[in-house]
């Protein structure tokens, strides 16, 4: 599905500043609260909370700025994360569990263990990632509402 096809289902959109660790998690909690009020099953909300948090942390850790959007369709929820930043040089490598380009400051906070993209993939029913080094990264996660 192209984004034009689901634009009308946009629930909310949030801007995120790079390196703004203090506010990390605010966007995912807002999205979670919003989904709760729509009566989406708890177990599905939990998966969405995990992947949104990881996407948020990635933008904060590695990009200059980014946007996370949540769409609620009749049969699915779509989370899109788009950022402006250095992008990912090697997408295959970046998705390998344990691989991380985090600096020491990030690791000391407990991030940067190289599990973010793996967690996002595991939490989604379908997962798309693309990046242009020097420009930014785009993530799209689809979570089906009618069970796997």
């Amino acid at each position, binding site marked *: 599905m192209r984004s034009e096809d689901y634009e009308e289902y946009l629930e909310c959109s949030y801007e995120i500043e790079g390196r703004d*660790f*203090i506010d*990390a*998690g*605010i966007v*995912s*909690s807002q999205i*979670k609260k919003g989904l709760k009020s729509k009566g989406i099953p708890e177990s599905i909300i*939990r998966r969405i*909370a*995990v992947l949104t*948090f*990881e996407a948020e*942390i990635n933008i904060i850790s590695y990009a200059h700025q980014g946007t996370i959007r949540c769409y609620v369709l009749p049969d699915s929820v779509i989370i899109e994360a788009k950022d402006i930043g250095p992008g990912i040089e090697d997408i295959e490598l970046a998705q390998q569990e344990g691989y991380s380009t985090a600096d020491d400051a990030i690791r000391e*906070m*407990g*991030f940067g*263990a190289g*599990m*973010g993209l793996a*967690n996002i993939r*595991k939490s989604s029913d379908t997962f798309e990632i693309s990046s242009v080094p020097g420009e930014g990264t785009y993530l799209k996660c689809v979570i089906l509402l009618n069970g796997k």
Partner: protein
Amino acid sequence: MTLETIAEKLSLKCKSSWENLKKDVSGGYAGDLLSDVMANSKAGDVWVTRQVHQNIVAVAALKEHAGIIVVQGAIPGKDTIEKAQKEGIPILISELPEFEVVGRLYQMIYSAQG
């Protein structure tokens, strides 16, 4: 088993959200790698960690933990406490290292469950 009972038995000091100490604890999770805690901990867990930055509150709130126990004499900053207070997350602290705290907590939680 409530957080209040745990705090008493382990001599933990509560630093935020005292009103939520009566929350029931259904399990425990220990760890300092946030992706791991996000992926593997459960709602109702008490989370044992040495991390003290504000993001621990975001994680605990997202995962609906019963509360956070900060170990090893680590001291949560004012910002973390304020955030925890706002989110209703009790933060308890212990001078003991993680192994000791988890060991005792494990015995308490699992003997309570029979």
